[in-house]
């Protein structure tokens, strides 16, 4: 496996001349823009990691006259806070990425779905948006962006739940297929991307796909903004080249006593100390939307798991049985084992339940509860039992 070591990068927060980049993009054809994004190897930064160039290509191929560009700024994954910082520091690059996406796919309208917890950002974001609309009008491109607010529901970060929410309904995920590229917001072809993905796309147009490819590894191209919290002397937001091992990460950010790192938030994986060296942070190892939580030896991994299961139990939309009932049973299950009301072998039954949820749940929430569950129970079995 490729290992790039740890190196800091400054693409996302770098101040750029947005007008120049947009003029460059608008002088390109749709195919040329998509070709650059494909060449860059960029994968979605919201967690699922779908190749951005392909998503754009599929949406561009749709024959509908009405299409939408949606920016996912719901950022509800525990431990993720980088999209807030991006919107706060460089909103014009988010808008720019959306307009470039619009040009590539033939869409003239964009929506940003911002979580309600970030409403305090809106006044400043509107000022920047006003400037942006003026600028692209000057360049001669017709593209309008509107904000829609969330109201405190993690599940609305799931793309089809997000569409339901914008349309005025309960945020319940839809069946797939059809995929958003054919039938998304208002049943029109839609390209939905994470905040960071859109900014990265703008930087790819600026620097060229071939240049971007030089960063990162074969499976994980480029750099990524990490949200780092927990037991670390330097919590915060850092942009790092992809392809480092968890060990290298811990050397830089740990407090000298790191026993586990939860990569990818509550729906991600727990990496224990004995796997730090061999585990690469990226799509070839542990994927992440950027959430990195460090735990030192003073923390009980039972408490961590319990907290995550409470989170999922509350945030499950309740639409499908494996997830609605499964989350509750996993939570009750570990409580029983802890209290000695069930034997420790009951944990094996619970792991089977988590595996069933992975195959039987309707959306990514229920499907990924098993990630943290399995990786914590398997690696910290004693802590969960005693």
């Amino acid at each position, binding site marked *: 496996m490729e290992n790039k070591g740890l190196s800091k990068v400054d693409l996302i927060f770098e101040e750029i001349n947005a007008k120049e980049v947009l003029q460059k993009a608008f002088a390109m054809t749709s195919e040329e823009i998509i070709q650059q994004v494909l060449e860059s190897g960029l994968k979605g930064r919201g967690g699922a990691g779908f190749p951005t160039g392909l998503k754009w290509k599929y949406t561009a191929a749709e024959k509908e006259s009405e299409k939408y560009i949606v920016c996912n700024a719901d*950022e509800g994954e525990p*431990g993720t806070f980088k999209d807030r910082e991006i919107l706060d520091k460089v909103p014009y690059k988010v808008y720019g990425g959306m307009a470039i996406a619009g040009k590539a796919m033939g869409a003239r309208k964009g929506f940003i779905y911002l979580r309600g917890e970030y409403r305090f950002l809106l006044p400043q974001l509107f000022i920047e948006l006003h400037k942006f609309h003026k600028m692209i009008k000057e360049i001669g491109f017709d593209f309008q962006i509107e904000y829609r607010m969330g*109201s*405190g529901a993690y599940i609305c970060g799931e793309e089809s739940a997000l569409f339901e929410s914008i349309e005025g309904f309960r945020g319940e995920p839809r069946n797939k297929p059809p995929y958003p590229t054919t039938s998304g917001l208002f049943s029109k072809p839609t390209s939905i991307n994470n905040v960071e993905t859109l900014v990265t796309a703008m930087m790819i147009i600026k620097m060229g796909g071939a240049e971007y490819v030089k960063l990162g590894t074969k499976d994980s191209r480029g750099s990524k903004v990490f949200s780092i919290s*927990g037991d670390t002397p330097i919590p915060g937001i850092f942009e790092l080249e992809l392809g480092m091992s968890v060990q290298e990460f811990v050397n830089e950010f740990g407090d000298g006593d790191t026993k586990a790192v939860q990569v990818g938030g*509550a729906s991600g994986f727990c990496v224990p100390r004995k796997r730090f060296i061999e585990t690469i942070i990226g799509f070839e190892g542990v994927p992440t939307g950027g959430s990195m939580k460090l735990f030192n030896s003073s923390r009980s991994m039972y408490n961590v798991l319990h*907290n*995550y299961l409470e989170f999922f139990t509350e945030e499950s*939309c309740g639409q499908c049985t494996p997830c609605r009932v499964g989350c509750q049973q996993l939570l009750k299950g570990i409580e029983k084992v802890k209290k000695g009301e069930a034997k420790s072998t009951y944990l094996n039954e619970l792991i089977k339940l988590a595996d069933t949820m992975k195959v039987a749940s309707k959306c990514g929430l229920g499907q990924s509860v098993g990630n943290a569950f399995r990786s914590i129970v398997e690696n910290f079995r004693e802590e969960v039992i005693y």
Partner: protein
Amino acid sequence: MYHTGNLVKELADKHGRQRENLMPILQDIVRKYNYLTDEAMVEVATELDISAAEVYGTASFYTFLDTQERGKNVIRVCKTITCSMKGKNDIIAVLEDILKIKVGETTPDKMFTLVETNCIGWCHKAPAMLINDMPYTDLTPQTVIDVVKGYMSK
């Protein structure tokens, strides 16, 4: 209880009367009156020409669209893992002490409601809370007292 007066009509004029305008309308009512009454939801249903059950069904899905009475200032303390590790319980204890209510309750003068919430995106500055739209981070028992006293004197 409150009476919406002309508000619902004004909001429908502003946002529109399509289904997609429902959330912005409900969000604006909550921003003004802190929660949704049955009366307000029925009015919204009438303006948008949909059933009241549809309005309630949508509102009840979203944590921030409260259908129970809420105080003028809603304090939401993050209880997810990092805040939990970094002293969230102490923050709750101080708040319960100065407001003289428990989590989930509203003060008798309807000035404050205290609730817990899931990760609000400030884990690197934990523990954190929101009061209405404003985040407060790196909280200590002392800073919490100062912040809440500020709201009390407003």
